[in-house]
């Protein structure tokens, strides 16, 4: 029953989305309100239908309805309750339902928020969003139907990918998809503004808001992805320049570029064309990322199912890019900037350079990701460019961005005088140089790390300088430090939210530099009672224990870790054997610390438990990534809050 109901709801939603897109567009063109209202109702009905699809799929998972192919392939009777819920988006077809559902929610928010406030743009925004939603519903109807029936009905399912049995599975895809789908809203507003020909100020405000929201979720998704990679995959790293990671990172980079260049447009009425291009590019990259990861043309650790879906995405991507840029070209006259650049030493140029570097980073990531494809297609030679390429090219770019992060917010608009430069940058520059010199004397030998440390101190210096000045100004009116800080965060939440995000990035930068430079590892085979030593830590192998879990068999190692005089800690890395898998999956154990993580992976072992091969890693400063990520998301949340106008 469920396959038929689900498929029916999908087809009905597709028809309604298509009608809605058409009706709202016609309503917008002719001004016929009845059509617009009909399209609006269609949007609401689409949301209800997709919600019904989600409910049906959940019901099928919870009741083990193996007549649904997707359920049978992604769960079995042993799958624990919460992983049966998350299995909903554990594979391709279910992810598309979740994706469409989020898109329909965003559409609903647009209806509620803007039907009265933006009467001119609104019909077109709704039309574009429903059009995109129709595309995803088409995917759910033709190439990747989640409600496909399975005949004959198997007695048990195949089970969920064991790597997906993790709490990160609840948050990582949800945050990532909220980010990806969120970029549809700014894109729809950009298109609507172009169609209506109102490229004035209000669309840019709305677009900026929505870009921050999508950016916020995407950042969160990337960070949780890093954490997942770190604590589940057992290779001890958080970022591998894997094609799937890259395809989520690229829209993040262009969205970050937009969030900066939009300030030039707001302030100086320049760069309209550029900003629109960034919005289109960001949305295009979300589609491209989905195409890349879901079409199977590029191998990845994520190894998603392959299928005809790639062709659909490629065609849609081509349609979106050609259509959007053609529209942009036809409105070129209206998009001429009103301002002009006055000086090379100005905030405008700092932001321009920031944009240039962010787009360059996007391009290098894009190039490195598709280079193997290009090489194979053009020369017939299979090659790979791995992490060394991305690191080599991106480290200088990111160091440049770090430098600009200090310059941009404080340098004067239009033309910075020598006095402005001295007032704002003399102390931070000196602090950066002193810090780099001090760390060099302390024995940090790695030049890149030293440069990064110096830059981080420089940027932190500019932020502190600005903050102290702003607080002093407020204190003159009698506020205490706390009240003044709160006032700044609340009244100028955009600027100070931005600073908090920058602080988060600085902490992340330190984490990346430290972990890349100082992490160490060793691999060895230990007999029972034997110990391995690394970086002052001593880990003793105490034995193995086997246990049977609901859906797998588990061998757990017992290890005692000692570090100087501190109390010993027990570590329990394991290997899990899933019946549907032929080889075991490692479950790492770790002790996180502010400066150092101890990370232990159980490898091969003797069946009698007399010996075990382990990989021991001392990872430096990885925790800074998670702390920085937390700071960054706090700053992002602050920047999303509506700005309170100053009363005075």
């Amino acid at each position, binding site marked *: 029953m469920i396959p038929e109901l689900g498929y029916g709801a999908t087809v009905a939603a597709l028809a309604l989305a298509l009608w809605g897109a058409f009706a709202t567009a016609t309503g917008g063109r002719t001004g016929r309100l009845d059509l617009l209202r009909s399209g609006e109702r269609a949007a609401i009905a689409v949301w209800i239908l997709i919600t019904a699809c989600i409910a049906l799929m959940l019901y099928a998972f919870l009741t083990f309805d193996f007549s649904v192919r997707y359920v049978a392939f992604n769960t079995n009777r042993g799958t624990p309750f919460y992983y049966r819920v998350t299995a909903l988006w554990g594979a391709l077809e279910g992810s598309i339902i979740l994706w469409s559902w989020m898109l329909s929610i965003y559409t609903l928010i647009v209806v509620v928020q803007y039907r009265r406030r933006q009467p001119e743009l609104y019909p077109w925004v709704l039309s574009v969003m429903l059009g995109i939603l129709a595309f995803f519903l088409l995917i759910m109807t033709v190439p990747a139907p989640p409600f496909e029936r399975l005949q004959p009905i198997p007695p048990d399912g195949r089970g969920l990918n064991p790597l997906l049995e993790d709490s990160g599975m609840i948050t990582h895809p949800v945050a990532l998809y909220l980010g990806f789908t969120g970029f549809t809203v700014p894109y729809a507003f950009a298109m609507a503004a172009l169609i209506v020909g109102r490229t004035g100020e209000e669309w840019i405000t709305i677009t900026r808001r929505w870009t921050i929201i999508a950016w916020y979720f995407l950042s969160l998704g990337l960070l949780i992805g890093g954490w997942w990679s770190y604590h589940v995959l057992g290779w001890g790293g958080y970022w591998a320049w894997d094609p799937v990671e890259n395809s989520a990172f690229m829209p993040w980079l262009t969205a970050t570029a937009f969030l900066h260049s939009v300030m030039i447009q707001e302030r100086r009425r320049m760069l309209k064309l550029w900003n629109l291009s960034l919005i289109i590019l960001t949305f295009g990259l979300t589609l491209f990322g989905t195409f890349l990861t879901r079409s199977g043309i590029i191998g990845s650790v994520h190894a998603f199912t392959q299928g005809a879906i790639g062709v659909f995405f490629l065609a849609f991507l081509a349609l979106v890019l050609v259509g959007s840029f053609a529209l942009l070209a036809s409105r070129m006259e209206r998009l001429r900037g009103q301002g002009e650049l*006055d000086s090379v030493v100005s905030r405008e140029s700092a932001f321009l350079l920031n944009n240039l570097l962010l787009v360059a980073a996007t391009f290098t990531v894009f190039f490195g990701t598709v280079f193997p494809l290009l090489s194979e297609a053009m020369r017939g030679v299979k090659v790979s460019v791995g992490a060394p390429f991305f690191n080599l090219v991106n480290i200088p770019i990111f160091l440049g961005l770090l430098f600009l992060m200090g310059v941009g917010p404080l340098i004067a608009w239009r033309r910075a005088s020598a006095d402005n430069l001295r007032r704002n940058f003399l102390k931070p520059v000196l602090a950066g140089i002193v810090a780099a010199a001090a760390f060099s004397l302390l024995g940090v030998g790695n030049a890149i790390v030293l440069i990064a440390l110096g830059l981080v101190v420089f940027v932190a210096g500019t932020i502190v300088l600005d903050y102290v000045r702003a607080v002093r100004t407020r204190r003159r009116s009698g506020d205490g430090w706390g009240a003044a800080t709160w006032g700044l965060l609340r009244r100028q939440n955009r600027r100070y939210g931005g600073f908090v995000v920058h602080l988060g990035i600085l902490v992340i930068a330190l984490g990346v530099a430290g972990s890349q430079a100082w992490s160490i590892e060793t691999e060895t085979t230990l007999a029972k009672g034997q110990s391995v030593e690394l970086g002052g830590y001593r880990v003793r192998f105490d034995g193995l224990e086997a246990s049977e879990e609901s859906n797998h068999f588990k061998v757990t190692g017992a290890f005692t870790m000692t570090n100087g005089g501190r109390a010993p800690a027990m570590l329990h890395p394991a290997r899990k054997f899933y019946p549907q898998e032929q080889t075991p999956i490692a479950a790492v154990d770790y002790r996180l610390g502010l400066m150092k993580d101890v990370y232990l992976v159980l490898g091969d072992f003797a069946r009698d438990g007399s010996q075990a091969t382990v990989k021991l890693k001392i990872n430096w400063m990885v925790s800074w990534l998670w702390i920085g990520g937390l700071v960054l998301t706090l700053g992002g949340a602050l920047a999303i809050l509506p700005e309170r106008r100053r009363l005075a």
Partner: protein
Amino acid sequence: MSRRGKFIAGGLVIVAAIAYLIWAGVSQSVVYFVTPTELLAAPVPSKTYRLGGLVMPGSLKWEPKSLDLSFTLSDGKSSVPVKHKGAPPDLFAEGRGAVVEGAWTRDGYFKASLILAKHSEEYKAPHDGADPGYKELMKSLRGEGR
């Protein structure tokens, strides 16, 4: 020079620098992907390759004490002996596909510094997944993961 000229010149310099970075990055870090047949046709010692093939049943030897791992990778026509220092990674097993990164040595074996094993999102029931076969293997090797 006019202001506009300065901006354009500055932009061009930066674009050129980044183009150079990409060029240098590619030429330094590109790794060719070869099959055992292709490798044996023209082995260049100590050049980094990625070698993909099927782990020959019966060829896997693992010495926990010394961490010596050795196996043979085959593409159906030729086979290459591979040696590696370290425990076999997850998802690595005889009869399965694997990609190794490393270099050919003058002693007549491939010294792997990295083993990449692949898995798919949907899990196969044990009975129909026991022998992936060469076709399946080559499909899974078309791209390589980490």
